[in-house]
């Protein structure tokens, strides 16, 4: 699996060491850092498809990153329409692609 983590940064320095948690994307374990958003954790793992549209089934992914649009909505622990760009990860969280309206 790809890892898009920025481990060291010229301005910000090395990435802070944070407690690791595991979220399950479509049942598949994805390692995440405590405090980050679901969208961040999935992006880190190279996952881009967050939901599909109701009428045409087209894929959508993280877009605005500030809770304004609805493109990153997923089914989180069974709850639909969760804006993953403003939702922090929790250990053991189940995250599923939202197909259409849920």
């Amino acid at each position, binding site marked *: 699996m790809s890892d898009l983590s920025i481990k*060291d*940064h*010229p*301005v*910000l*320095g090395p990435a802070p060491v944070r407690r690791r948690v595991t979220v399950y994307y479509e049942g598949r374990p994805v390692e995440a850092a405590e405090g980050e958003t679901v969208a961040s954790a999935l992006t880190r793992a190279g996952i881009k498809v967050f939901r599909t549209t109701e009428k045409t089934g087209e894929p959508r992914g993280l877009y605005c990153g500030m809770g304004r649009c609805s493109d990153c909505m997923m089914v989180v622990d069974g709850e639909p329409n969760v804006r993953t760009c403003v939702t922090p990860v929790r250990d053991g969280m189940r995250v599923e692609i939202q197909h259409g309206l849920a």
Partner: protein
Amino acid sequence: MKEGIAYSGVPSEEELAACPGVPSRARMARGAVAYIECVQCIPCNPCQQACPQGAITVGTPMTNMPVLDENKCVGCGRCVSKCSGLAITVINKACGGGLATLDFPYEYLPLPKVGDTVEAADRLGQAVCPARVLAVRSDGGDEGTRVIRIEFPLDEADRVRTIRRLKPEV
């Protein structure tokens, strides 16, 4: 295509010639001097405060282009890391041995190491010639903007502005 920093991101000959922060050729030939490539009216003045010699004046309004007093400037390079636009370098064409040095700001990782041979690059990021790294320093407590000094053939001193970004070690 129209020339100039607003069209290409590269200042034109005319813009540089008219820029009050660019030292004269005669001054550059005498030794280390700041080269302030600030050719637009930007509301910004930290370079003025940064200079211990009082060689840089922005004044009022703040959007004035910084004026370099090339006779006061000693080429210490304190201004290099203080420029928010990363537009200041220090050029020294009087090192001898057919060489010149350039102090320039660098905000990428990995950093070059002293003694490394790197590719000096021009304003378009194109490789110009090999250069040797003489110093890597951070001024004024800000680790984010490093100032790197490289040494390269004097002939290329008018073209070299930076180095090619180093590829991360795998």
